[in-house]
């Protein structure tokens, strides 16, 4: 099972920070967002927003990065610290 992480307001939309998703094959992040969008328009459009970055296993990647069932995919909205 791939682990999906939703930070900041994305976690509110997803109803939780973390969920899992079974991936029988590698999928591009864009495809995973489309799968989520098919079930949840609000969350899907938020994940596809231009200011959301993606990280796989702790490294920033582009939307065409291939995610496998063993990976951790994090959706990172605009940050704010301090």
């Amino acid at each position: 099972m791939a682990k999906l992480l939703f930070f900041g307001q994305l976690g509110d939309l997803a109803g939780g920070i973390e969920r899992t998703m079974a991936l029988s094959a590698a999928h591009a992040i864009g495809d995973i967002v489309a799968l989520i969008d098919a079930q949840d328009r609000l969350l899907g459009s938020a994940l596809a927003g231009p200011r959301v970055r993606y990280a796989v296993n702790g490294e920033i990647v582009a939307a065409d990065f291939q995610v496998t069932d063993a990976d951790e995919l994090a959706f990172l909205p605009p940050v704010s610290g301090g």
Partner: protein
Amino acid sequence: MRRRVRIVAQAFDPEAEISIFRRSLEAAGAIVTFTGQVRASSADGHVSSLHLQHYPGMTERGIDAILDEAAQRWPLEAALVIHRVGDMDPFDPIVLVATASAHRRAAFEAADFLMDYLKSRALFWKSETNAAGRIWVEPRAEDYADARRWDDAPGGG
């Protein structure tokens, strides 16, 4: 450069940390600190509480990388970053940055640089809960502008 990075889920005592930091110095005579604490009120009215999230592991690696960059730019003996996460009340310390150098300007600039990173680029997400509900905070335009100051700047020292 000696360094210490801590992401803490419990309240911390900035002055106790500054004291330990200062007493650990062997040569540096100039110590600059920045402490950020929860404000009693924000633009949206009275803040009743603040929540901070981070991405364990990745957040720390980002801070470690910015400390590498600070060490390259300025002659620092030591640097300290402590950042609170979880639920906080007004006046709770959120962040502490401390830098030490033989040179006053190096310590000032490095602390300023680290805070700009923590404010607008480090992987933290902050929400405020007030009478109007919960809102996720984004950096202000000036926070982004502050962080960009360092993009083309030559190293100080």
